[in-house]
């Protein structure tokens, strides 16, 4: 699939929760072509610090624009959070593989930890479009850091929330909610997840215990995002051998059972 590197105008940009921002950018190329779980590589500085771009998943899209939802973590995302509508950013994408929605799926469980939900929104939209029943589980440290709630409510999906401190929803980890749902043992179910690595690892343990097929969106330190620098590798067990695979091109979506944590 063709990828583009374009100047994208910032149309809207605002803080949506503690340390979390949402931005809409003008780009037909990415708005039209991004598939669930695909990402862009964004230049956050016109100087040389930070030098490398930052990867962000396409949160939602339309024909003329696309959105990202991100957490401020370090220097790059801090700089990004200071940009304003009317400015342009260099955007490379859409990149990577995408979530697979197979024909036989009866129900889907979507599990997002923190800003991880950003990688799952296009997928939730597609599941709804294809009339596949979906439950969304959302986790955060505390209520003030929850994102995407209103957008999910607008879609009318079954949504359950967990916070570490109990300030909203279940007190505890979002993976505990996942286990609760899986306990009913329905067949032809698929789990999709994205979040901090410990969360994804815990989720992977649970879903494998229940024998449920699971796709996870992995993160990794990224250089070129085009498959060249071989910096973003993760270890994947496929056909009995453990091999290094690129998050940027063979990923970011991998089957949980293949991931060597």
């Amino acid at each position: 699939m063709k990828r583009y590197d374009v100047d994208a105008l910032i149309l809207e940009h605002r803080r949506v929760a503690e340390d979390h921002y949402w931005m809409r950018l003008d780009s037909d190329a990415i708005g039209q072509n991004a598939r669930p779980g695909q990402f862009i590589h964004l230049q956050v500085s016109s100087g040389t610090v930070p030098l490398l771009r930052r990867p962000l998943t396409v949160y939602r899209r339309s024909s003329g624009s696309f959105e990202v939802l991100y957490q401020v973590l370090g220097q790059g995302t801090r700089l990004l959070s200071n940009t304003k509508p009317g400015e342009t950013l260099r955007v490379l994408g859409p990149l990577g593989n995408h979530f697979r929605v197979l024909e036989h799926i009866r129900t889907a469980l979507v599990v997002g930890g923190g800003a991880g939900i950003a990688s799952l929104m296009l997928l939730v939209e597609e599941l709804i479009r294809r009339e596949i029943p979906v439950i969304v589980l959302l986790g955060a440290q505390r209520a003030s850091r929850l994102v995407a709630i209103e957008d999910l409510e607008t879609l009318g999906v079954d949504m359950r929330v967990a916070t570490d401190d109990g300030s909203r929803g279940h007190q505890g980890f979002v993976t505990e909610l996942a286990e609760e749902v899986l306990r009913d043992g329905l067949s032809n179910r698929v789990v999709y997840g994205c979040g901090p690595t410990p969360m994804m690892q815990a989720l992977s343990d649970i879903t494998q215990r229940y024998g449920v097929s699971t796709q996870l969106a992995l993160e990794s330190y990224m250089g070129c995002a085009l498959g060249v620098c071989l910096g973003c590798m993760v270890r994947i067990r496929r056909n009995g051998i453990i091999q290094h695979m690129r998050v940027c091109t063979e990923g970011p979506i991998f089957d949980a059972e293949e991931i060597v944590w």
Partner: protein
Amino acid sequence: MIPNLAVTVAGIQMRNPVMVASGTFGYGQEYADFVDINRLGAIVVKGITREPWKGNATPRIYETPSGMLNAIGLQNVGVRAFLSEKLPYLRQFDVPVIVNICGKTTQEYIDVVTMLEGSQGIAAVEVNISCPNIECGGMSFGTDPDLAHDLIQAVRQVTDLPLLVKLSPNVTDVRQIARAVENAGADGISAINTLLGMAVDIDKRRPVLANVTGGLSGPAIKPVALRVVYQVAQVVNIPIIGMGGIMSGRDAFEFLLAGASAVAVGTANFVRPDASLCVIDELRQLLQQQQVQDLHEVIGGLNLPEGKRLCDI
């Protein structure tokens, strides 16, 4: 008057002096959406070894101020797969293909070159004697003048392809290595490879890279690279391909003045996939502004302060 950018370096005829550096442009195909490959001066492909190499454990890269550290460990498909799967794609372009090679022993280098020798579509071989990532390999060849000499002499004997030798900056006096490889029959010198560096994570109290150390590249190393090119240009008669932190046409111009006959764009390809084309266009503009008619007018054209010579640096 549009300046003439064409240059022939070590027998490699290029339409302009701007190459893409090894390991930063894959095998070309990965960048085809963004770069009209026929506009490049030359392509240097990712380092190739006799057998496929798996590379290092992760994390392999880390960003530092105006640069990045990498410890990829020369992961590559090996020379056989390169010839059957990667080279055919590159043959469709009218651009010299330079094959970067590496090995852990002299025999490995010889074997790779021997396998490349009979293939159509290879303009030159760039011998990486400087990769800082491999425990017992590259580093030792590149840091000792005698080892470097013997390696290049051995490789010279098995090929008629132009031989470029890529130097490591991680040495006390790079001029000794440069002279040694020239004497051994090198046709040109590429300088520089990455600078050995390290990053520390204070929370985990561990080195950030799984390999502990890695190679520093990007704008942070440009002053070092310019100095190395300048020093080497003083002591050899073979052409130099300058690289290290080139982000713009202005950077490229600086390397030409310091003594490089051509340049390579590396890490900048990660920042802007079309960085190499931007460098070409900007270089042409700058030369035009300075009313330069031919690139050769500026190569090594540095005006030194009164009385300053090699012995002063």
